[in-house]
C-alpha cells in the first residue's frame, strides 16, 4: 500500500510540477493545489499505513493508525486552502486589472 501511494504521490508531483511550469495563472494554481494533495498523501504514507482502526478510541480494537500525521495534514490542508484562496484572488485581481491571464503578457503591457 505504501509503495503504491508513494507512486501515486510521485505521479501527482509530476503533474503538478508540469502545471507549475506553464504560464497560465490557472494552471499554476491548479499545480499548487495538486502539489498540496500530493504532500498530504505523502505525509500520511510516511506515518506508516498500518491496518489499524481510525484513530477514535471508542472504536473496538487497540491498534490505531498513526494520528499525528493526520493532525499535521489537517493543519496543512487549512493553510494550503488559505494560500490557494489568496492566490486565486490575486490572479483574478490581475486579470480584472490588466486583462492578462499570465505574467508574461502582463509584463508586456506593463513595460509599454
Amino acid at each position, binding site marked *: 500500500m505504501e509503495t503504491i501511494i508513494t507512486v501515486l504521490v510521485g505521479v501527482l508531483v509530476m503533474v503538478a510540477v508540469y502545471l507549475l511550469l506553464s504560464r497560465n495563472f490557472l494552471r499554476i494554481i491548479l499545480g499548487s493545489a495538486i502539489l498540496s494533495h500530493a504532500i498530504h498523501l505523502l505525509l500520511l504514507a510516511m506515518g506508516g499505513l498500518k491496518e489499524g*482502526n*481510525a484513530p*477514535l478510541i471508542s*472504536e*473496538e480494537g487497540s491498534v490505531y493508525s498513526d494520528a499525528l500525521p493526520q493532525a499535521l495534514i489537517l493543519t496543512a490542508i487549512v493553510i494550503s486552502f488559505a494560500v490557494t484562496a489568496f492566490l486565486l484572488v490575486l490572479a483574478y485581481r490581475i486579470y480584472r486589472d490588466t486583462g492578462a491571464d499570465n505574467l508574461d503578457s502582463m509584463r508586456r503591457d506593463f513595460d509599454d
Partner: protein
Amino acid sequence: MISAMLTVSVVLFAITIAIALVRMIIGPSMPDRVIAMDVIGVNLLATIGVVSVLYGTKAYLEVILILGILSFISTIAFSKYIERGVIVERKRDR
C-alpha cells in the same frame, strides 16, 4: 458471504465512478460534466457507506452526510455558473 457481497458492490461502485469520470472527461457539453461530477459525488457517498460497513466502523458516517451536502452545493454552484456566470448575486433583480 456478506463481505463478498459488499466487496462486489464496492467494485461496482468503483466501476460506476470510473465510467462517470470518462463522461466527465469526454464531455461534450459543460452540463454533461457537471452531471458526471454529481454522479461521482453521490456514488462516492454510497461507496463510503459501503466501505464503512466493510471496515465495521462508524467513523465515516459523517463523511456521507457531508459529501451529500457538498455535492449538492457544488452542483448548484456549477449550474448557476453555467446558467448565469455569477454564483452569488448582489441583488437578484436582473
